[in-house]
């Protein structure tokens, strides 16, 4: 008889961040599968009878009977579009949809429910939520009107940045300065995300929230506006204490978004901490690898119910 697992890890097999969490769970505690590239030995069966669903996942070595007391660690399964064969693309999409649907039909703890992540990714709502919870948020403009952008940049004394709202269908687009001397005609026809520049930065802060716990790393560079443009080795990463009011606000903000986990970006100056964005499925592996902060252990504790943070939710804020 196979060991009974209570945690369902949904991740691509080459997801080393998922490996970090798996390493903290204990092998018999979880099943792991990638619906985007499902092995034939992985068995997923769900049945609706007498008004209720029952579902069982067997990854070939452990079995999870989906239900109360189970938790899902939904990372990033292989995306259908990575398959060149159209049948495999269909299969990946079908499997991911089926698995997600079966899991969402049960009252489970999610870290995080991907449908809630999708609903929480919208930056305007994130900024508003952050402000409601007392975080300082830069003055922000969304516009496809070049003159509105010009007026905004002028209002901020030529100290503004432009960001990509999404990073889909393109190579990485970092945050860059936008100036009055720039040709802004390229703003016409595309809503651009413009924000006041936060100057005199002491460091960037990556704040990772796991339930009620907060782990923060200071990221220092040689003056880079966007640390994401640099390989991790080119930045200095150190754990730092999060001011209590910032930590509390971050926890409440993430909870407000319907999430258990998120990674928030801040700029820290002598004036304090300025919120930039919330990455609802943000990466944390490099922070843990370089600073030792125990994020994966915290996630594992939440998934196994080892902390008072563990919460069960029947569904998030996304529409069914």
């Amino acid at each position, binding site marked *: 008889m196979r060991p009974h697992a209570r945690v369902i890890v949904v991740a691509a097999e080459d997801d080393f961040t998922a490996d970090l969490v798996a390493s903290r769970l204990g092998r018999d505690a979880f099943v792991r599968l990638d619906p985007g590239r499902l092995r034939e030995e992985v068995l997923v069966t769900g049945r609706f009878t007498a008004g209720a669903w029952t579902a069982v996942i067997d990854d070939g*070595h452990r079995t999870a009977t989906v239900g109360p007391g189970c938790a899902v660690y939904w990372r990033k399964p292989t995306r259908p579009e990575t398959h060149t064969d159209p049948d495999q693309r269909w299969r990946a999409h079908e499997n991911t949809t089926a698995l997600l649907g079966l899991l969402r039909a049960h009252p489970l703890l999610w870290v995080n429910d991907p449908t809630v992540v999708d609903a929480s990714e919208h930056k305007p709502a994130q900024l508003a939520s952050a402000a409601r919870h007392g975080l300082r948020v830069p003055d922000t403009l969304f516009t496809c009107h070049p003159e509105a952008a010009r007026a905004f940049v002028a209002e901020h004394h030529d100290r503004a940045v432009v960001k990509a709202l999404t990073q889909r269908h393109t190579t990485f*687009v970092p945050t860059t300065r936008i100036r009055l001397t720039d040709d802004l005609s*390229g703003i016409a026809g595309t809503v*651009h995300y413009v924000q006041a520049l936060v100057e005199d930065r002491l460091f960037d802060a990556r704040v990772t929230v796991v339930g009620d716990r907060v782990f923060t790393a200071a990221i220092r560079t040689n003056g880079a506006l966007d640390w994401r443009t640099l390989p991790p*080795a080119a930045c200095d990463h150190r754990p730092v204490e999060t001011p209590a009011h910032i930590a509390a606000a971050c926890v409440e903000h993430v909870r407000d978004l319907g999430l258990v986990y998120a990674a928030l970006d801040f700029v820290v100056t002598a004036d304090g901490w300025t919120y930039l964005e919330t990455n609802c499925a943000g990466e944390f592996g490099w922070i843990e*690898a370089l600073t030792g902060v125990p994020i994966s252990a915290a996630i594992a504790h939440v998934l196994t119910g080892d902390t008072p943070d563990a919460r069960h939710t029947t569904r998030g804020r996304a529409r069914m």
Partner: protein
Amino acid sequence: MRRPLVLGRGAAAMPADTTPVLPEYHYDPVVGANVVADGRLLVEAADPAVVANYTSTQDQGGVRRKDDPK
């Protein structure tokens, strides 16, 4: 239709020779994680700086920002 301003500001991909090399590894379904040749977990056997490069916000090829939800 003119090219969006922000798309003219894409970052160059990181040079190939800056991509750190992982030790030989494979996914072990029994373990539920990637392991190296002697059976140790990859994330424990590899240099933390190497693990960091593969678990950061960018794909190694610079094609996709991994902080995206998908």
